[in-house]
């Protein structure tokens, strides 16, 4: 099997227990702050300690374009945010500690961003700094302890996340408490997916604007509005490739707005709309990004997923595929425009965003039919999430080959005759199985998939953790 190109190697912030947020929209503002750090340095980092990669580029002196990040002052690298940075980091094979320079006692409890430019190593991540190595009373040290389970690389044999041997590692010490500032619904970042041409030859570096948003018409961010630009056309204040949209406050997934995000109806905000703490999970490579969160105060979780899918059509017809999904919870049940079942959006031929139902390979034929599976209680309309009951669990596990059976997912477009596509895209970064196995079960020949909840599998690196990555549930 050929090696995965570096831009397509998925990296992880397996979990991030965020500090308490209580300012306007800060529960979502810290999502973007964490994404800024993970996307800009861990996934796309250059050997530049202050300027992230993976954003629409400007001139050499302004490495990312003006207008790409519209956030509160000093949000990126203010002195109270970026506490220290250097490029003299050293890690050792199988070891839990990180060696650098000039770490302070006050850095304990803050977070360390680790990366090397062009690296495929999943050590590139964000870590809670847990201690300063040295004699009692030490106030400065070159060695710190971190929570390896947040990132790192599965160690041979044990598969426990540990560092690998590297030198000249870049790092930044960040205080995410400083992300607890007041946000508005005009705050956003624009990311660029430089891995797109590695997925689909000839594809432009597609871009996505992630904006703090609400559907209520006020100025309290209640979720993330997503606006995709297939050709990557950010001009400094808008996309210029004809994808309709703009800074409106309404969400009309099948209408004229290019954005989508918090559910288009009036019944839901995304979770975490209030104050408090939350656990955030980030997964991404240069072709995709997934952000999941559940807060202490929330009765459900929220997440979004942006991906360059596998192109099905010839380049001339569909040069720059990109899809995105936002959802409360990890479900496959809903058929009304959100969640994995019907929540993926992509542009139609008219460059308007449409929701695309997702399909999987049905291993028993064409449908999961309640008449054909006696004893199974279908809590939704014969959907995969309802499957799994005693003996029938063996439909998803072969005891002879010792392998689980799961499916890829493909997107259709089926809302009207002039917009019908029986197969539009194939998703590359998720898989699906009946929920017959516990959360955190690893699947695949190399543990490359992780069961989250309700049969949804995320990409994984075979790591074994002492606990779930969903510290506040799913």
């Amino acid at each position, binding site marked *: 099997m050929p090696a995965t190109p570096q831009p397509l190697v998925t990296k992880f912030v397996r979990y991030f227990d965020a500090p308490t947020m209580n300012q306007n929209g800060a529960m979502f503002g810290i999502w973007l702050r964490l994404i800024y750090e993970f996307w800009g340095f861990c996934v796309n980092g250059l050997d530049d300690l202050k300027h992230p990669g993976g954003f629409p580029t400007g001139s050499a002196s302004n490495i990312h374009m003006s207008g790409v990040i519209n956030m509160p002052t000093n949000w990126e690298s203010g002195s109270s945010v970026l506490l220290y940075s250097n490029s003299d980091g050293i890690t050792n094979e199988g070891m839990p500690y990180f060696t650098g320079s000039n770490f302070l006692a006050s850095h304990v409890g803050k977070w360390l961003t680790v990366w090397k430019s062009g690296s495929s190593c999943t050590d590139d991540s964000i870590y809670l700094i847990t201690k300063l190595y040295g004699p009692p009373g030490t106030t400065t040290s070159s060695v710190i302890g971190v929570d390896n389970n947040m990132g790192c690389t599965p160690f041979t044999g044990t598969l426990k996340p540990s560092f690998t041997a590297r030198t000249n590692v870049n790092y930044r010490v960040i205080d995410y408490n400083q992300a607890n500032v007041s946000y508005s619904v005009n705050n956003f970042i624009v990311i660029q997916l430089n891995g797109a041409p590695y997925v689909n030859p000839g594809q432009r570096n597609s871009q996505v604007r992630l904006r703090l948003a609400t559907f209520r018409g006020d100025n309290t961010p209640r979720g993330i509005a997503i606006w995709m630009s297939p050709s990557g056309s950010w001009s400094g204040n808008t996309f210029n490739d004809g994808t309709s949209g703009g800074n409106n406050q309404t969400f009309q997934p099948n209408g004229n707005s290019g954005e989508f995000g918090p559910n288009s109806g009036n019944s839901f905000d995304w979770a975490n709309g209030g104050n408090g703490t939350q656990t955030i999970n980030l997964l991404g490579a240069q072709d995709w990004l997934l952000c999941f969160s559940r807060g202490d105060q929330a009765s459900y979780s929220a997440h979004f997923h942006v991906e360059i899918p596998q192109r099905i*059509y*010839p380049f001339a*017809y*569909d040069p720059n595929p990109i899809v995105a999904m936002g959802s409360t919870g990890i479900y*496959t*049940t*809903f*058929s009304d425009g959100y969640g*994995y*079942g*019907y929540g993926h959006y992509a542009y*139609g*031929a008219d460059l308007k965003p449409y929701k695309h*139902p*997702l*399909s*999987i*390979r*049905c*291993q*028993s*034929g*064409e*449908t*999961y*039919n309640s*008449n*054909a599976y*006696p*004893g199974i209680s279908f809590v*939704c*309309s*014969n*959907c*995969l*999430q309802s499957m799994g009951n005693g*003996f*029938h669990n*063996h*439909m*998803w*596990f*072969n*005891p*002879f*080959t010792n392998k689980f*059976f799961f499916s890829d*997912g*493909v997107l*259709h477009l*089926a*809302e009207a*005759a*002039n*917009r*019908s*596509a*029986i*197969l539009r895209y194939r998703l590359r970064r998720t898989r*699906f199985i009946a929920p017959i196995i516990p959360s955190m079960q690893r699947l695949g020949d190399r543990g490359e998939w992780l069961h989250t909840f309700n049969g949804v599998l995320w990409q994984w690196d075979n790591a074994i953790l002492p606990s779930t990555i969903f510290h506040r549930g799913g």
Partner: protein
Amino acid sequence: MLHVCRDFITLGNTNIPQACVYFHAIFLRTVMNFTVVGNTGFNLDGGTFTLGSGGNGTISAASGFTNRFTPDGGYVVSSSDINRILVIKSNLNPMLTSGLWRVTGIDTVSNQLILGLRGEPPVAETGLTWRLHPAETSFTFTQGTNGNTNQYRGRTSASNTARIILQAPHATGWQVRLTYESTTDVSTPLPRSTIAPGMVGDTLGDFPVGGNHLHPMLFFNTSVQNNPYVGYTAGWTLDVTAMLRFYIWGEDSTGTVVGCTRQVDSSNTNSMVAYGFPEDEEYPTDAVTVRRLFVYGQNSNGLNSNILNFQSGPRQSIGNCMTAFGYSGQPIAGGTSVYCYLTGQQFDTDGPRYNGNGSDDPFLAVTQLLTVDLIAGTWDYMDFNGQAQSLFLEPRRLGRFPIARMGRSNYGSWTTSTDGPRQWLHTLNGVYLPWSGAILP
């Protein structure tokens, strides 16, 4: 190379199960170059069933129609040839000339058979392999039991049930048993005519009980109503006398076949069978040949209609089954796996294939076709009479459903694609098969 038998119609009302066995057997023998391993009551290579053969026949035109066949090898045409079936293999025009052709007349002056044309004619060429067989109405297959109560009746020399085993010209030497089953076995129920790929058949046309093959009733040597092994011995259509149109696709390097029947009136039904190797098999290829084989077809006798479809499941709710061989060492039941909605599925009426908004793709301006997978070991019962948990569940992808593809079901039935060469034929229910040229309505 893919060969197609295009729209061969029975000679009036015909014993349909017999015709199914017969037409496929003669297609396999000549077009696919299978060899006969053994038979009972169906000596295909003997003088009763093979009336002439050669390797250098010629198709030519006369009076503006390319419908003349000149046999080689000294065969002399006669009026007795009328209504007989000429089977031709063409390596130059496998989708137009290969297949079954009805002899509708003779030209004794030129010593030529005149072929009945149904749509696109064959192409004028020479060097054709051919065999001439009697009309399907000129004989009657026998069927009778071996007298072994509660056992499968259609085996051993004590049973005169007509059957034949043919071997594919493939390195694995896989075989297929075509059987006109006994009335007693059919009552269990079993399709009247069945298809069972397998290995190591004998001269009687039988596979061993418990052997490497996909005939569950024979494997378990059982024929008891509502027994656990009912419902996944694959076969054909209704057990009636009627008129029917046949289409057969065959890939001659593997021996894999897909066949469709098309009703002429409501006395019979449309159907589909497939057997042999999947395409795009899992890698590495299984070292045990029988675990690579599959058969897809109807799973009972006359219970369901409109089964030209990608379906699979218990016979009392779904008309078709997909049978393979498991690591458990026995035939197992599986699915023809299509993409279905992750949520909101409705049995047989929804899903991408049945979406009422289906149309040509807005990007490509063509109808999209998708592959269908074959997944073995996903049904634990196939009769639906309370025998749940009787078969092994051991899910495993075999590969891709061969030759056929899935598309939107609201494309015109039995119509071809509109591209120049008309490369695809939509049969029914979103089942598309390779085509070339015109088709009769």
